């Protein structure tokens, strides 16, 4: 019998609420198939199965809040017969699960707030946003159709959005406090000239349609992924008092949410993807993160985090490591700066790259070498597109 447990969906998540079962009793489940949708303080997450089997019993009830590690369902292994007398089926929440699964509503925060203010029932709206997300315009259209004599919006739901934001703040606070309490951080930084990389990017984009253009972020992410191959001590987890390296390079990309807070879902196997694919996946990841639709593998498989302040940010960022990871790479704003080279002075686009790393696992010298490797990779942009 296989126990399907609520996985950790990031170090900062210790519980979740079951929103919907995506499988029923008797269904055959493949590896990677979405079993359930679970709401965390940060997002609604598609929880995937990591084993094959046949659903024998759904234990968790829709609407149930449970800690990480809770057995949500039982699966029969291939060829396995259920124990005699054992009642397959569902737990106490059987009726709710089979009769009326709670539909996940992907709703933009502004739309949710507006719906609460206008007393609009979100379940009555068909979303027109990404993957059916309900947008502000959808709510406005629905509100316009409502009778003008609507009763005042109920007082209770209004704090919900605020509660959710407060919950997310608490979750981030807990994870970051733990990080700073447990991880002895060290920091190194390197100014990296980007003239070559941006010239290559400009030439590449000139050949592409608008929809296929690359952002500098794609180059930075790929360069990080490739540089990590030579510095495996920065890619992995600190578990049970020891470092566990991970072969796959899964970059957790810090994505800020418009309503505040951030999530760092993973771009899986970033080192092996050409830039076009990496850019497509990054675009999709940002879209789904902001629409609240992520997969469990994206939430719990990042092996290192990259935070990129972009062109609206500060010159440099020194991040807090996301446990159990052991490093974080930060990029500040790309800006023109004076650059001394070969006895001369010129003006170049430059980015400050930083590394925050766990001193239990690596030392500043290795961290500095990693940044030099990153610099080197970015001076050969054409090789990043492989």
């Amino acid at each position, binding site marked *: 019998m296989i126990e399907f447990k609520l996985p950790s969906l990031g170090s900062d998540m210790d519980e979740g609420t079951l929103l919907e079962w995506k499988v029923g009793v008797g269904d055959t489940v493949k590896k990677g198939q979405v079993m359930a949708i679970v709401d965390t303080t940060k997002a609604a997450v598609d929880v995937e199965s990591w084993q094959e089997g046949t659903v024998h019993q759904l234990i968790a009830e829709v609407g149930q809040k449970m800690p990480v590690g809770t057995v949500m369902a039982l699966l029969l292994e291939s060829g396995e017969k259920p124990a005699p007398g054992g009642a397959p089926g569902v737990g106490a929440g059987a009726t709710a699960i089979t009769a009326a699964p709670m539909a996940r509503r992907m709703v*933009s*925060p*502004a*739309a949710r707030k507006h719906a609460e203010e206008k007393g609009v029932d979100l379940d009555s709206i068909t979303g027109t*946003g990404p993957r059916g997300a309900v*947008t*502000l*315009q959808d709510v406005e259209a629905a509100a316009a159709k409502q009778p003008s004599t609507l009763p005042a919006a109920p007082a209770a739901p209004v704090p919900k959005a605020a509660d959710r934001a407060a919950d997310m703040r608490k979750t981030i606070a807990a994870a970051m406090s733990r990080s700073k309490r447990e991880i002895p951080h060290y920091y190194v930084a390197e100014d990296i000239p980007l003239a070559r990389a941006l010239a290559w990017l*400009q030439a590449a*984009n*000139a050949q592409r349609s*608008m*929809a296929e*253009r690359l*952002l*500098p*972020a794609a180059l930075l992410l790929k360069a990080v992924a490739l540089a990590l191959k030579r510095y495996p001590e920065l890619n992995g987890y600190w578990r049970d008092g020891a470092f566990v390296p991970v072969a796959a390079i899964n970059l957790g990309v810090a994505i*800020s949410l*418009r*309503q505040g807070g951030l999530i760092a879902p993973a771009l899986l196997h970033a080192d092996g993807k050409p830039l076009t694919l990496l850019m497509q996946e*990054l*675009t999709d990841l*940002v879209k789904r993160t902001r629409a609240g639709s992520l997969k469990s593998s994206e939430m719990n498989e990042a092996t290192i985090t990259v935070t990129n302040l*972009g*062109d*609206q940010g500060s010159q440099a960022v020194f991040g807090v490591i996301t446990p159990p990871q052991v490093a974080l790479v930060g990029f500040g704003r790309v800006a023109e700066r004076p650059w001394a080279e070969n006895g001369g002075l010129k003006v170049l686009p430059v980015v400050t790259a930083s590394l925050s790393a766990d001193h239990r696992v690596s030392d500043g010298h290795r961290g500095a070498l990693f940044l030099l490797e990153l610099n080197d990779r970015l001076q050969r942009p054409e090789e990043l597109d492989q």
Partner: protein
Amino acid sequence: MTDAEIRAVALATLLSIAPEVEADELRGDRPLRSQVDLDSMDWLNFLLGLHEKLKVEIPEADYARLITLDDVVAYLHNKLGAG
């Protein structure tokens, strides 16, 4: 298309990316991205949205000219050949 129509399309596109924006509070002569907090991907999606709605090609080399909402409207006006 008139400037007002172009501005309406631009605002609708912006709202689809940043739904929290209060269109009435936007200053057309101030940098758009700092008023709305658009990151580079939001900006790309904004321009892509304009491209799809108005069938206007916006070369990357022109991005630097598009700072304010007024800049965007004037640029699109030019591209559309509107009188």
